[in-house]
């Protein structure tokens, strides 16, 4: 192999390699859906004239506001209300306004940080250990699914007396 043409080929390939073969920077913008939000179902029992008990949800009259946050959340035409748990503490509190009365909903949970990528940062998942309310109109607060890892699963059910 003659050296001179080889050097010319090398130089040409160097230029090609510099632009084409060197590690490209990954995407800097996140395109993944990382939201892990607790989904709350609210149900209330009502007795019909025939004496039957039926359950219903009337989201239009319910509003939530996180303790430590001024933004009011209202659910309309929803099967479940999405409520975020705090990433920086193990007890999240929401003020619940229902039929004009205000109550506090407590959720005890363990936040879990899951690193995704440099573009997306971290997803925060939670495991709910306990949930309660001091309102006597609340019959029970039950955990349906303790793991909050997506936007699609029902996690909590608040059952009210009418």
């Amino acid at each position, binding site marked *: 192999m003659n050296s001179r043409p*080889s050097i010319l080929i090398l130089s040409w390939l160097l230029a090609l390699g510099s632009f084409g073969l060197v590690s490209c920077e990954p995407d800097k913008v996140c395109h993944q859906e990382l939201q892990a939000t607790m989904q709350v179902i609210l149900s209330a029992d009502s007795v019909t004239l025939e004496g039957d008990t039926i359950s219903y949800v009337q989201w239009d009259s319910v509003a939530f506001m996180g303790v430590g946050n001024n933004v009011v959340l209202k659910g309309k035409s929803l099967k479940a209300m999405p409520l975020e748990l705090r990433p920086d503490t193990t007890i999240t509190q929401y003020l619940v306004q229902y039929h004009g009365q205000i109550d506090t909903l407590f959720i005890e949970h363990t936040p879990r940080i899951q690193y995704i990528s*440099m573009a997306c940062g971290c997803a925060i998942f939670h495991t709910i250990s306990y949930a309660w309310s001091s309102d006597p109109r609340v019959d029970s607060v039950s955990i349906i699914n303790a793991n909050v890892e997506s936007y699609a699963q029902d996690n909590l059910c608040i059952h009210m007396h009418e």
Partner: protein
Amino acid sequence: MSKRLTLILLFVAWALSSYAQGEQDVYKDTIPVFQGIGVKLDLAMPIIEAARSAGKIQDYEVVINARLLNRFYPTVELGYAMAECGADGGQYKGLGGFARLGIDLAVIKKGVAENNFMVGLRFANALQNYDLTNVKQSVNYWPNQRLDFYDQFRYDCWGELVAGCQVFLWKGLHMGWYGRIKLLITRNAKPGQVMPYYVPGLGYRKDFNWGFNYYIGYRF
């Protein structure tokens, strides 16, 4: 995994068959097994990164290889890299070292394999210490506090398929280039661990990556 294994087996089979053919070569009786040691310095990455990242990424490496039977080049590549870069999700700052072990094969069999095309395989390891700061949390309703992870430590390994050439200019002085296809093996993080954005010797952390080196060296 099976694709990778197939690729390795094909390469080994080809190398062995090439060597068997080489045994019939007229040069076989005159070729000593050990034919010296070469040392090479990479010029491409320092220049490219100085231009591309304004020195925020620095990558230096040296290659030491031996020439055996005029065709085989057992190779050790040692390097050091530091990087400071980021994306929407946070900022990365890290530094570490890497080592690649492998073998090259001279493609042209006839004659003295000075000016030649080379193909080879590498197994590479990297250790690094890094900080990930200002990392975003996927929180909308609550105040989005950014997270900081300082003094993280990480080991990574990957395999490489390399191809290139070398040209001798004067006595033992030679230059050449390598293109590299890199396949990351350590892809998962332990629970709670944050992954580095950049891996010394691999480049930006991706399962599949490319690389390019341009060497100048001397063979003793």
